[in-house]
């Protein structure tokens, strides 16, 4: 597995660029990854989605279903895609430091 360094922080990532350890997440990670996810600047809206994903993951041990993400944050799926062009899984979960989505994706 590869190690990345950004602003003095070290991140261990897999080949798809997902963090291998949720605990290694830090705000620098979001800064680092946003470019490859096609996001010029992190807005409050982005932060709200990231914060919710992290809270939900800490509480439940899983990423929320898309409908739960929409309902709680108030962003429709279309708006989530506007915020995170790669979508809630590849985009938002990756930025939030959650594990890579699995199953037949």
């Amino acid at each position, binding site marked *: 597995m590869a190690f990345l360094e950004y602003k003095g922080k070290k991140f261990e990532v897999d080949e798809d660029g997902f963090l*291998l350890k949720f605990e290694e997440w830090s705000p620098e990670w979001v800064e680092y990854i946003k470019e490859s996810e096609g996001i010029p600047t992190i807005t409050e809206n982005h932060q709200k989605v990231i914060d919710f994903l992290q809270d939900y993951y800490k509480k*439940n041990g*899983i*990423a929320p279903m898309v409908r739960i993400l929409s309902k709680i944050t108030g962003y429709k799926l279309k708006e989530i895609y506007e915020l995170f062009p790669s979508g809630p899984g590849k985009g938002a979960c990756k930025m939030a430091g959650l*594990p*890579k989505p*699995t199953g037949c994706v």
Partner: protein
Amino acid sequence: MAFISSGYNPEKPMQDRITDIGPQHFTKFLPPIIAKNKGAWDYHEIIEPGMLMHVGLSGDKVFTVRCGGARLMSITNIREICDIADKYCGGHLRFTTRNNIEFMVSTLEEAKALKADLNGRKHTAGSHKFPVGGTGAGVTNIVHTQGWVHCHTPATDASGTVKATMDVVFEEFTNMRLPAPVRISMACCLNMCGAVHCSDIAILGIHRKPPIIDNENLDNVCEVPLAVAACPTGAIRPTKIELGGKQVNTVAVKQERCMFCGNCYTMCPAMPLSDKDGDGIALMVGGKISNRITKPAFSKVVVPFIPNEPPRWPTLTKTIKKILDTYAKDAHKYERLGDWANRIGWERFFEKCELEFSHHLIDDFRDPAYYTWRQTTQFKF
């Protein structure tokens, strides 16, 4: 090769981005004669194996020559298919739902010339490139999956087993002498991508050992509740263990409840279970999807395990050939394999096909298992 840009600008990924345009409309690619007679066909005939004739109400005729394809194809191969279509069919062709290739021409002479050309084309090693057949009551192409070529959960290979099987049943591809069509399908794990659950004969990759748990990484790469919920028999539970003086969250698998489906590995990369000697193939028979005479049916497991024997899988192909030959000899006209087995009774099916009946074949999955047992005194010794 050095990088060559397509014009996409990674600095502005959303600029000039085209989305949601869907597939091309099929009418753009119809041969003129098909477009002209669309929705106005009168009847059809199978002229000879691999060659169909459709006659329109207008009197127009279309001859279709069907040939086998390996499904997994190189662009070189596809270009050759295009060259053939350019030469005979005005640049038109189509693929069937079983991944055969169909070329359409307007006269019988052209169709015969095309068939001869197709049958004459061979790979350097001697295999037919485009064997003509796959029509009527024969064995057509095998619907199959990714196997060791591309997937991460397979218990066997797809392209390999399919090539080995088609070689053994090749005569039936180019003939129409069976009681009814026999559909063979292949899936490399019991996700059953494709048609194995509803095919006359089905090849299915299975595991025989429980997953190995990578306790060190599990909590990092998996969403534990998903792995727990992925198990159809409730064999997985979350747990904490001591590892290198540290408490880590992980899962525990109750081995005697695990039936090696591999669903947990699909959800959780830290639970791999493929195993060289454990993995192999189960054979199922008797499924169909058409409504002809009898209702659609699921295929049933008749051989619980055949070892993986790459590259030719001799035991597998021998068993399939035996089932196919017995069916061909014994079944009535129009009788699909499952219809035949149901008529003669499954005890007779096992006897005639010389298959061993073991306890693995008796359903034990939840309440519905009961309905697969025999609640009658009607049976044959």
